[in-house]
């Protein structure tokens, strides 16, 4: 049985679609991030408790949010790939991993920089920090397993199993660490109905989250095209596309 949208996910179509999306995603990234940076660093007032140090939120929260979201995307792609064998899902998962790992690293480093003035320590073994660190290890394991297996098909499937088990693991790790008293402040955006943050601070934050997301989208589209060419270099459409390109160059 075929996946309902298998046609859309054909390598050729997705290659072209990713190419069309790159400029749009890039523009959106630029717009949202410029507003987020200016709004967050200049227009937003200082926090009454944390002073200007709170502005770390505009890097930390989007990075942390995306580190988890990208892992969720990898998880969903892995499920799709294991069940319906759609190659595109596998390539999306493969190409997302490095971006996700980088965001996780940014979240950890910015969190440490934020923690030093606020808590007086770079690092504390609290539930969220530990889960984030484990998430980084999961990303590394995922990329390590992929690079260790040379056949793309087996690598994709093994990595997919790994991603699914890792997804189950994250909440368990989180709750197992939560036994210890936690220093981390409560979630800022969990209660969107009545945010615990002023509007002038909130809008740039949302813009930064959007900007980070579209930056990921841009990178993903670029990397997706590379991945498609790497996997499909023997197929007809790549040769046709390559001939076209070389003709237009001449």
């Amino acid at each position: 049985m075929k996946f309902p949208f298998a046609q859309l996910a054909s390598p050729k179509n997705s290659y072209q679609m990713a190419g069309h999306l790159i400029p749009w995603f890039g523009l959106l990234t630029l717009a949202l991030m410029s507003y987020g940076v200016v709004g967050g660093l200049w227009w937003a007032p200082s926090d009454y408790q944390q002073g200007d140090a709170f502005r770390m939120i505009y890097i930390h929260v989007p990075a942390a949010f995306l580190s988890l979201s990208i892992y969720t995307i990898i998880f969903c792609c892995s499920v799709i790939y294991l069940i319906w064998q759609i190659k595109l899902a596998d390539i999306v998962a493969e190409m997302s991993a490095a971006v996700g790992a980088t965001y996780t690293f940014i979240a950890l480093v910015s969190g440490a920089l934020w923690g030093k003035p606020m808590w007086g320590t770079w690092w504390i073994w609290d539930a969220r920090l530990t889960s984030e660190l484990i998430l980084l290890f999961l990303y590394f394991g995922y990329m390590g397993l992929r690079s260790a297996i040379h056949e793309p098909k087996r690598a994709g499937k093994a990595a997919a199993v790994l991603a699914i088990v890792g997804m189950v693991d994250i909440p368990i790790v989180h709750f197992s660490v939560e036994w210890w008293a936690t220093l981390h402040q409560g979630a800022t955006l969990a209660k969107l109905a009545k945010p615990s943050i002023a509007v002038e601070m909130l809008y740039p934050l949302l813009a930064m989250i959007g900007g980070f997301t579209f930056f990921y989208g841009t990178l993903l589209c670029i990397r997706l095209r590379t991945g498609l060419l790497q996997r499909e270099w023997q197929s007809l459409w790549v040769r046709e596309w390559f001939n076209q390109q070389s003709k237009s160059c001449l």
Partner: protein
Amino acid sequence: MWDFKVFIVAPIFGGDVNLSLDKTAPVGSLSQAFWGVIRREMALYDQHRGDWAMPFLFFIMVVALFSLTLGAGADWLAKVAPTVIWIAVVLALILSLETIFRADFQTGVLDQLGISPYPLSVLMLGKSVAHWIMIGVPLLLLAPLLGGLFLLSQSELWVLFLTLFFGIPTLSLIGALGAALTIGLPQGGVLLAILVLPWMIPVLLFGASALVAVTEGRSFNSELLLLTAIFIATLVIAPMGISAAVRISLES
């Protein structure tokens, strides 16, 4: 139209692999196959006693090195004992799991198991049970003995035994899943450790915190119940994951 078996189960667990075989052929019951795998595994462990003993030597040496280098006062030593013993157990298990599929993969036994009419997950569970009997149980018995090196009290040794009783099979099932993913890879050992250590963290934390609880005079029930829950969940899910991973590794 939405047939769960055709749409979800078969693509993952390779239901079509067995279709060519006549499933009605008199090949013996599933439980016979299960016990057969266990007996074969035990015979193999018996043949390679030198390999079998390595994880225990490693375990004893790690624990001894810790207690040697930490030295210092007795009460302080007892505080780090649960952590040290649990981590040594994890490392010894990973060391022993690295080779769990290697010989079977090289000799083609794993392929034979894969095309047999029995569910691969049950056969893999048999392999894990054999591993638990031959490696897990001796580790379980060794750990409290070595706890003596750290001057643990009797009640603490008892809790150590109880938590390891549920912890070791959980860890070895999780580790087997990682080993199944890395079958036949060069540098499989280091990769295996990197893959499975994050999965083992909850078990490790609950096990160690149960011991901390008992040294502080609190009840350790909740930790023990959580360990049991994780064990049962792993026991149900991991064999399916292992068989799926083995099939993926056999495809190449």
